């Protein structure tokens, strides 16, 4: 049985007995996941490839619903007191509140300014001064203002990979989400850009709840407050990061973090 510690902080999200199956797959990819997510902290999800960590992450903002046939069989994800895997959930609204950063930088084919303003404009912000202020604030919070201030009109694809990823973070935080999901955000970046993103993640938790999927155990240890270890679709252990990497409660966790498999 899984070892899930109790969390003293307020919870941003509570997952209960979640089961999820991909279209046409014979077996569910998430099995009976029960997991609290602490508010204003960083929760890392680790585990070998195919363990379901990205699948779980993409359930939080219902990304799976973009493709037909994937089904949430059982369970619930509670957010703001309601079950967000309810079919009646307003997905546009949900995705404004729960933002996402992807494995690769995904700058849109438009200017730097328009990239960051995109989410704001979708919500109907038209006032120029307000747009300017919020874009500037988002770029500052994402630590990329200095490099972009004098070239906001330039094509965003002219930025380096690390800059583009920070631009994507600026774009996501411009709409002030409550939760930000990171899906292996540094897997395509060099070590120095990676450091920048990791610093940013730990800074951002002042303002929002962060869930980060990572392949890299050291990264989880560096940035997170809580770590969840997943294996074959199950959450094996959730614990405080500093405790879990020193004294894991589960045998599987111990074997994974000591490098016996992975």
């Amino acid at each position: 049985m899984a070892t899930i510690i109790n969390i003293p902080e307020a919870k941003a999200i509570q997952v209960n007995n979640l089961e999820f199956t991909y279209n046409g797959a014979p077996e569910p990819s998430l099995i009976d996941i029960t997991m609290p997510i602490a508010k204003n902290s960083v929760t890392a999800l680790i585990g070998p490839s195919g363990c379901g960590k990205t699948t779980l992450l993409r359930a939080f903002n219902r990304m799976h619903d973009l493709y037909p046939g994937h089904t949430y069989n059982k369970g619930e994800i509670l957010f703001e007191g309601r079950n967000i895997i309810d079919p009646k959930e307003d997905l546009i609204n949900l995705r404004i509140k729960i933002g996402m950063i992807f494995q690769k930088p995904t700058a849109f084919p438009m200017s730097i300014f328009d990239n960051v303003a995109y989410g704001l404009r979708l919500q109907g912000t038209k006032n120029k001064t307000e747009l300017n202020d919020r874009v500037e604030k988002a770029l500052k919070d994402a630590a990329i203002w200095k490099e972009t201030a004098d070239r906001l009109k330039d094509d965003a694809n002219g930025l380096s990979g690390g800059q583009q990823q920070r631009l994507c973070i600026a774009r996501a935080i411009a709409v002030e989400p409550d939760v930000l999901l990171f899906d292996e955000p540094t897997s395509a970046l060099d070590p120095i850009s990676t450091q920048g993103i990791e610093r940013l993640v730990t800074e951002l938790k002042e303002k929002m709840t962060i869930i980060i999927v990572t392949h890299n155990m050291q990264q989880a240890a560096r940035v997170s407050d809580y770590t969840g270890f997943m294996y074959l679709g199950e959450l094996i252990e959730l614990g405080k990061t500093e405790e879990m990497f020193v004294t894991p409660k589960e045998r599987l966790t111990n074997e994974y973090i000591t490098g016996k498999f992975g």
Partner: protein
Amino acid sequence: MTMLFDKIFAHSTRIIAITVLLVVAAIFTILFQESLLSIQSNGFAFLSDTKWAPNLEKFGALPSIMGSIISTFLAMILAIPVAIGVAIFLSEIAYERLKAPIGISIELLAAIPSVVYGMWGLFYFVPIVRDIFGGMGIGMLTAGIVLSIMILPFMAAVTRDAMNTTPDILKESAYALGATKWNVVKDVIIPYAKAGIIGSLILALGRAIGETMAVTFVMGNVHKISMDITQPATSIPVTLANEFTEADSDLYYSSLFELALILLVISFVIIAVAKSYFLRRTRRTS
């Protein structure tokens, strides 16, 4: 031994490639040579004169040139919105199970020989256009419609392929910000695929402007510039197809060759523009 074979192989491919260039150059030379008489005696007035009266030795190409441009323009206006709509449906909206059958049937439509479009246009479409818009039914409008139907499948298929190159992760990041499907198509997919879409439009334009069989049936071959698009008109390929057999004087014959030269130059320019778009796109993505 293998080295020798490699050398022979390399040289033979080189010779074949050069042959293609030679053929193009030869066509160009012949057209120019045959047009020489017309270029000398008609001068630049050939391009601006509206009177085409072979029996009086008067040759003005403007009605043919205008006919080509206007019928192609009409075809593009009619085909572009439909083609882009079909492409959006196929790449973003249709269910997986629908995509393949519809996609394949559209590609099959592109294989219909243009003479079939011409016959179908003459016997089926001309009466309909006559009933709705008046006039003779034969003319610029009918030619434009038939051409638009003919280039539509190609345009839709290439536009769809261009849209399909948009990475999922890019679309997902727009959805993750609360975008609707319409937002994603408008703000992400179309801008991302823009170069490919424009390239497909220009290639379709090149095909439409040189099209002969489909429009010969429905154009009317009347050398007049009419503001009324329901009236009969002509275009460069239509004039060529209809009049070579009747060319009884050297100047008439040479004037037709100059028309062909003009058409070749127009097509060359269009393809060159399309190419430069495609090249810019590959440079950017690589």
